[in-house]
């Protein structure tokens, strides 16, 4: 999160790249992108020291639209790739983004392990409860009975609860926002980036083309109760399990050692600041 002192203050629009979003008009992901620009500007992050990483999906197109380093990887692999980047160079701000399918379905196995290792990443999941890019199939967060082309008789699989899942896996920062409220979302992203450890930010980001939940969600979204204690994992879990509303805000926050604090690469080959090493000294031990 280095600031470049010569550079004039960057505005949100300065983080816009030349590639124009290919999203449908009205897609919730526009709100998330706007919040991200806002957050980057608020933190004055250096585009040459920031990497936005994604998997595959509509939401995973986001890195192309941001004027920082970016990497659109393979479907579901955003977290291990982002972890590799962060370990290799902990000075980078690494922001992982993607969809509910990318993160909770094919990538679900990585989430748990990223969370427990606690690399200092911010992971913004654009949850639209549907597969957008592949044209509207059921996703792991789709509601029971959801009818799509892949589930014409209604989905029989109970949806997962990503917030509860992240909390139970030991996440050190967990928040939920709504792309319909980009101001709050930007604040959550700022907090997530500032959090020293893995920050999980579930953003409710509707897909008007295949599952238009804007009104439904707007009606159900409310702030976490004012007395919510974000240092209490059980309280956070209780909020995650609520079905009377969709609470937004910071569910949980805890500071514990990050992965890089153990495993950071200090001998970065391109920075050449490691100890002198002549392999012959190692080889001599085999005599």
């Amino acid at each position: 999160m280095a600031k470049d002192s010569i550079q004039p203050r960057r505005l949100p629009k300065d983080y816009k790249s030349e590639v124009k979003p290919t999203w449908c008009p009205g897609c919730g992901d526009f709100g998330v992108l706007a919040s991200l620009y806002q957050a980057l500007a608020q933190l004055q992050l250096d585009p040459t020291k920031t990497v936005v990483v994604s998997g595959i999906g509509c939401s995973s197109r986001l890195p192309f639209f941001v004027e920082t380093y970016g990497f659109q990887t393979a479907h579901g692999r955003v977290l291990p790739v982002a972890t590799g980047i962060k370990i290799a160079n902990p000075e980078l701000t690494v922001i992982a983004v993607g969809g509910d399918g990318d993160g909770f379905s094919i990538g679900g196995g990585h989430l748990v392990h990223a969370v427990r290792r606690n690399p200092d990443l911010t992971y913004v999941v654009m949850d639209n409860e549907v597969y957008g890019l592949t044209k509207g199939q059921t996703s792991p967060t789709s509601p029971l009975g959801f009818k799509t082309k892949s589930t014409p008789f209604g989905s029989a699989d109970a949806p997962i609860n990503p917030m509860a899942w992240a909390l139970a896996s030991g996440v050190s920062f967990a928040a939920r926002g709504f792309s319909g409220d980009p101001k709050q979302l930007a604040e959550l992203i700022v907090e997530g980036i500032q959090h020293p450890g893995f920050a999980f930010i579930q953003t409710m980001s509707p897909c008007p083309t295949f599952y238009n939940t804007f009104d439904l969600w707007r009606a159900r979204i409310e702030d976490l109760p004012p007395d919510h204690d974000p240092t209490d994992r059980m309280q956070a879990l209780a909020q995650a399990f609520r079905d009377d509303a969709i609470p937004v805000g910071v569910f949980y926050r805890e500071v514990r050692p990050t992965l890089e604090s153990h495993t950071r690469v200090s001998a970065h080959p391109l920075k050449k600041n490691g100890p002198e090493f002549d392999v012959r000294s190692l080889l001599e031990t085999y005599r």
Partner: protein
Amino acid sequence: MFVETLLLRMGGESGIDNVISAGDILTLSVARSGYHVHTFRTYPAEIKGGPVMFQLRAGVRPVPSLGDQLDVLLAFNEEAWELHHQALRPDGVLIYDLGEHDAPQGFNGVTYGIPLERLARDLNLRKGKNLIALGALCSLFGFDFQELQATVKEKWGKARPEFVESNRIALLAGYQWVKDHIQEEVPYRLAPPDPTHEPELVMSGNQALVAGALAAGCRFYAGYPITPASDILEEMARRLPGLGGAVLQTEDEIAAISTVVGASIAGVKAMTATSGPGFSLMQEMLGLATMAEVPVVVVNAMRAGPSTGMPTKMEQSDLNIALYGGHGDAPRIVLAARSVEDCFYQAMHAFYLSETYQMPVILLTDQSLSHRTETVPMPDPNLVPVVERLRPSPEEYASYRRYALTESGVSPMAVPGIDPTPFTATGLEHDEYGAPNYTPAMHTAQLDKRGRKFEVVAEALCGIQPPLGCLSYGVPEEEAEVGVLAWGSTAGVVRETVEELAAEGYPVTALIPAVINPLPAQRILHFARNLKAVIVPEVNRSRQFAAWVKAHTELPLISVNKYGGLPFTPAEIRAKIMEFLVTRPTKELAQEVTYG
């Protein structure tokens, strides 16, 4: 009688007889005395218990293979005799545990009973049986006992100082018992070592590979345990933190290769190692590395497949997946290490190629190579250049195009946090800047760019010399009648057999490339141009290497395939060569050489 090589096997019960640790210590001490060594071991299917075997082949000159019939078998129990007696030469030496089991029947060679268990019991050294055996072997075969004592003390003393004394006693007990009870001379003894030959290193293939990777500048490793690649992870975990690097044990192989791709994007030379099942899982991410042009090194230590197969057995059957495993047009550089020493060089080579051409490089080894130890002359890291990837120059900053359609196909790769030129890497087809682009013209142009890089590699590798290039053995190609074309760890046994035959006066030659893709086809055609027969031995059923060579050269090849989980022996290679040899050496020549 003095012999040039001695092949000695110890068989016992895993977890009881400590056969492997005894074998390793004996190997080291023999090597320190100036001999060349080559070991082989088999593990039981069980984690604890079950039969285990260690074999040491030592020689006055290099011993590139595991050899044929055993000269000596030390059977810690009756099962070991049952399992291994067929491998013992009829006039060999059998050693058994006197008092614990009866002298095995039906063997006409020399038999010695040594009361290993009883001596251990008498000395109250429950775990000392293996050291007693080593002392006894030393005494019988005239190995350097001081060296053995010193080696045991140095290697085991540090970890367990409280056992230094009892180890000493155990060694001595075996040594002395033989001195006291066995007067006759053993039929075979190793000739004295060449006094001008400096003792070499003793390493396993996996250890040499890690050293090579570190020498090349690898500073990040991610992996998931799998036999026989696990000790690469373990060795890296021990070494890298001290070098300012990092190791991550990931949740699976997909995460391992993904993390490595991430670390490489961030500018760190990175590697993973696995075996067949894990390698199958890495195929998709390898395609991303090809498409996004990210340098990564992936080691596949092959074992017997398909599926989980036989994790502790060797096979050379993952060549096809290494060459062709990804979807789409995704060519990869494939290297195959040929010996323990070569594991070092090819690991360096893999990084050199991967960083230079910004693409995945697959380095193939196999279970026999990974786990065996060999004497290795001190490698020279300066034989392989250590390079950094091409990055944008300040003049290029203003109009930086990550995937510029350059002539060589290689385009400058900016690194986040280092270069001031942000771009977005992607697995989608993209334009020169990296933005998604699906036009026919751009897809064609970018496929050509990635393909062109590959053609440039082929040219650059043309004519590279050993240690990286093709190894040749035997008589000069133009004088040969039969040639053996081999790859990977089969190199050793081919080298030994061909050198032996050539020394015996037979017109036999061998060629062994390390770079499998791009295949040095011209070199192979040149090799074959005068040969009556080209024999291709490989440890698989489907003749993977022969088919690959044939696709590039249209040479008629004679395949020899073995697929039981074990490497070839010299006798098997020799028999096949003999089938195709017409010319026989003159008698004089043959005799001279057999004697030498």
